[in-house]
C-alpha cells in the first residue's frame, strides 16, 4: 500500500478511494456524508488515523485543532443522533465513533503519534527488534538488583538509607536521560515534518527519511526501557 500519496493531503481534502454511497449509489470521494442523500458513510478500516481526522502525516499537530476536529466528528457520528435512523446507519455510527475515538487517543499523545507513524511508514516499531542497547540493559539489571536490596533491607537501617541515597541519584540521572531522549525525539519530529513538507523524492531524501525513522524507533524503544525503570524507582523510593 502506498501511503506517501496521502501525506500531502491538506486538512480539508480527505484523499480516499472514490467509492459509492451504500444508500443511493452516487459517488462519494472521501466525504463522511453522501452529497446527494446525506446518509452517513462508513469510515474505511484502511483509513489511517491522520487521514481520518483530516491531518497530514506530520508529527507536530496543533492540539486545539485536533480537539476541535475530534469534537466536530464526534457530534457527526454520535450514536445518540442515530436512534431514529435505519439499522444500517446505526451500525455505521457505532463503527465510525469507535474508529474516531481510537484515532483521537492515538494522535493526541506525541509518543503514541510517533509510534503510530512509524507503524504506518516502516512497519511496527514493536515487531522489529533492533539490536539491544547492551550497556543500557546491564545498567537496568544492575539497578534492579539494588532496588531488590533496598526492598529487603531492614526498615530505617543504615543500609536502607545508604541505598536510598544511591537510588535517588540514579533516578535523577535516568530522569535527565529520559528528558534528553525526549528532546532528541522532538528534533527528529521536526526533521521528519520538514522532510515531508519538502516532498522531495530524491535518493538523498529517501536515505534521510530512513535514517530519521530508524533513529526515532531506537529512541522510542530506549525511552520505554528508561521510563520503566524510572517508574519502578519512583514507586519504590517514593
Amino acid at each position, binding site marked *: 500500500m502506498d501511503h506517501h500519496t496521502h501525506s500531502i493531503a491538506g486538512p480539508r481534502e480527505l484523499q480516499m478511494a472514490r467509492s459509492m454511497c451504500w444508500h443511493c449509489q452516487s459517488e462519494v470521494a472521501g466525504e463522511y456524508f453522501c452529497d446527494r442523500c446525506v446518509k452517513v458513510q462508513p469510515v474505511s478500516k484502511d483509513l489511517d488515523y491522520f487521514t481520518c481526522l483530516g491531518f497530514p502525516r506530520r508529527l507536530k499537530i496543533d492540539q486545539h485543532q485536533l480537539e476541535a476536529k475530534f469534537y466536530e466528528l464526534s457530534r457527526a457520528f454520535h450514536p445518540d443522533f442515530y436512534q431514529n435512523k435505519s439499522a444500517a446507519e446505526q451500525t455505521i455510527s457505532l463503527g465510525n465513533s469507535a474508529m474516531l475515538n481510537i484515532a483521537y487517543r492515538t494522535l493526541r499523545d506525541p509518543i503514541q503519534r510517533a509510534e503510530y507513524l512509524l507503524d504506518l511508514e516502516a512497519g511496527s*516499531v514493536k515487531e522489529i*527488534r533492533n539490536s*539491544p542497547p547492551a550497556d543500557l540493559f*546491564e545498567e537496568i*539489571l544492575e539497578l534492579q538488583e539494588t532496588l531488590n536490596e533496598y526492598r529487603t533491607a531492614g526498615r530505617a537501617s543504615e543500609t536502607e538509607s545508604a541505598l536510598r541515597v544511591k537510588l535517588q541519584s540514579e533516578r535523577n540521572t535516568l530522569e535527565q536521560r529520559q528528558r534528553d531522549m525526549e528532546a532528541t525525539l522532538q528534533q527528529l519530529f521536526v526533521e521528519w515534518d520538514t522532510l515531508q513538507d519538502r516532498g522531495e523524492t530524491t535518493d538523498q531524501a529517501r536515505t534521510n527519511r530512513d535514517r530519521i525513522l530508524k533513529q526515532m524507533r531506537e529512541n522510542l*524503544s530506549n525511552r*520505554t526501557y528508561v521510563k*520503566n525503570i524510572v517508574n519502578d524507582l519512583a514507586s519504590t523510593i517514593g
Partner: protein
Amino acid sequence: MAYSDKVVDHFNNPRNMGSFKKGEEGVGTGMVGAPECGDVMKLQIKVQNDTIVDAKFKTFGCGSAIASSSLATEWLKGKTIEEAQKIKNTDIVQELNLPPVKIHCSVLAEDAIKAALADYQKKADGALTEAE
C-alpha cells in the same frame, strides 16, 4: 486477568536467578528487550562438552516475563546445544498457560535462549581459531 498458578509459582520462587562470574569459561550470554513493554531479560548458559550444565537469568519485567525466563533456565539445564535450539516460545506459552497479551514474554525468552546460544557459539568458535 489472573496469572496461572505456574506463573505465580515461578514468580514467587524464581529458579536459577543470578548471573555467572565475568570471564567464567563456557558461558554464553543473551540479552534481549521488548520495546513494547520495556522488559529486559538476560539469560546465561554454561556449557561443558556440548551440554548445558547450568543456566541463570535476570529479568526486569512483568510476572510473565520472569516466569518465562525462569522456566527457560529450568528447561535448558541438561540439554545439549542442539536440543536447546528446539525450545519454542509456544512450549512456554503452553506450560505457563500464558494469555494472548503475554505471548510476547515467551517470545522474549525464546529470543534470549537463541541469543545466549549464539553468543556461546561465537565464543567457542573464537577459542577454536585461537587454538589452531
